[in-house]
């Protein structure tokens, strides 16, 4: 078994989820290559040589990989793929963009959002907004998959530097062009890795009121999330949405404030270690999955919470 991981990175830094993907890869093999494709990204590759579990780093450094477009990247990885039994990436918008295209080029059926690796060819993944878990055996020669990073702890050790291999294959298909990147301008920790997430729903009522959550998040060194209703109403930016069609988070503590607990929302947070729900409707479904529920008006609770958390 040989695993190839497609690394995600930006501005010279490896994306933190790559460390979770390495952990998943270790369930398959001890022979793990990590591909760092990009433009002027040698430093990222050099750094990655010290990652626990990684036995080879492959660097593809060319301006055509600058935006990590799915078209160029999938073509590059398809070229490298025949030497590997498994190809892994994070199940986030990066991995989900490139992996299926790559799989189509390789004529294999990929797996999305793998939660657990039972054997080299048997995988568990959530379906129906996480209400069910499917156990799937893959018969393809190359098993292409994205892994749910919250289900695999990150590797943490620094080891001796592994080999660094440079490939000079250029796939400059010029099929798409990135014009602009807008990074969410939150100073809070990233939603995906924060230990505490405080999410607000429709009931928060306005972006002004969301400030109550932000100041609480600051006290708890947490990130702010939201339900779709809150995002659609324009209270907070889209990238804060937690759920089936947003981010999947699994923090130590998840506080749902004024969120009813629709299955699509629960899909994104039910693996949190401790869930707190604050809702004035005692029958709201969020209470079915909350460890601690408080039936109360959020506008009474939030100031009190903040005052008592010193």
């Amino acid at each position, binding site marked *: 078994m040989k695993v190839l991981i497609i690394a995600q990175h930006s501005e010279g830094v490896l994306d933190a989820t790559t460390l979770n993907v390495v952990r998943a890869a270790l369930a398959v093999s001890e022979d793990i290559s990590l591909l760092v494709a990009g433009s002027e990204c040698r430093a990222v590759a050099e750094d990655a040589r010290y990652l626990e579990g990684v036995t080879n780093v492959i660097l593809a450094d060319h301006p055509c990989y600058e935006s990590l477009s799915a078209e160029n990247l999938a073509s590059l990885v398809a070229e490298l793929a025949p030497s590997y039994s498994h190809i892994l990436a994070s199940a986030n918008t990066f991995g989900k963009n490139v992996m299926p295209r790559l799989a189509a080029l390789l004529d294999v059926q990929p797996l999305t959002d793998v939660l657990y690796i039972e054997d080299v060819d048997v995988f568990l993944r959530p379906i*129906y907004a996480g209400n069910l878990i499917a156990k799937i055996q893959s018969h393809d020669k190359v098993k292409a998959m994205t892994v749910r990073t919250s289900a695999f702890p990150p590797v943490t050790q620094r080891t001796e530097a592994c080999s660094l291999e440079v490939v000079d294959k250029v796939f400059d298909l010029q099929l798409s062009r990135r*014009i602009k990147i807008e990074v969410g301008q939150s100073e809070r920790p990233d939603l995906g890795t924060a230990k505490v997430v405080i999410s607000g729903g429709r009931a928060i009522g306005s972006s002004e009121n969301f400030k109550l959550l932000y100041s609480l998040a600051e006290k708890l060194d947490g990130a702010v999330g939201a339900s779709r209703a809150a995002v659609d109403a324009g209270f907070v930016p889209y990238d804060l949405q937690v759920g089936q069609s947003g981010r999947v988070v699994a923090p130590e503590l998840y506080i749902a404030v004024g969120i009813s607990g629709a299955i699509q929302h629960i899909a994104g947070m039910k693996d949190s270690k401790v869930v707190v729900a604050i809702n004035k409707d005692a029958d709201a479904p969020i209470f079915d999955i909350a460890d601690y529920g408080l039936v109360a008006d959020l506008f009474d609770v939030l100031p009190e919470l903040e005052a008592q958390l010193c």
Partner: protein
Amino acid sequence: MKILVPVKRVIDYNVKARPKDDGSDVDLSLAKMGLNPFCEIAIEAALRIKDENDQCEVIAVSVGEKQAQEQIRTALAMGADRGILVEVDSPLEPLAVAKCLKSIVDREHPDLLIFGKQGIDNDNNQTGQMVAGLCGYPQGTFCSTIDIIGDLVAITREIDGGSEVWELPLPAVLTADLRLNEPRYASLPNIMKAKKKPLEVMALGDLGVDTRPRQTLLGVSLPSERKPGIKVDSVTALIEKLKNEAKVIL
């Protein structure tokens, strides 16, 4: 301008899916079915382009069982011009669906394909990207805006922690995120009109593509349930629990 919108018949989004008693698969025997919400958004996106272009045809295509005709009719009632069903006996894997769609692309030569970003049944989020790969077309996934500018399409993509703006030359494949638009409702007259719109049914065999499964579903189970929690009666009690019982705050 010709726009192809692949649509999928799935469980209604309000229904909580259950495994079959023997755990072999999902039990859909009694489930209410409907048009995948993301596909509905894709149809709406195509119709908005059509609303602004006189010469625009929107084709709804499904690779599915006979009953998927209902979902194609929904798309026609919303305003699509015609439908194509590639009829299959049992659901195909996304790779096989993508190959069927590629052969429709080879026949229809659309300028644009708009997919929903994922089916709410299997949550695969694959088919659009795979069709783009098979056709060698550019792909724009998770779109929250779409603008046709001559023979280019400009899109905003929703990504983790922000968004990106991209330009793709046509023909291109796009996948729709939730916030791209709010789909229109089909009016009663339009539902009646849709019954007369052309809906071509093709047999899978006619396409001559390799749709053999690559995976075996070994079983479907319920995820581990969270332990039932408790209600607390005050903020003070909540903080006490979080500090001393759950030990998640200091």
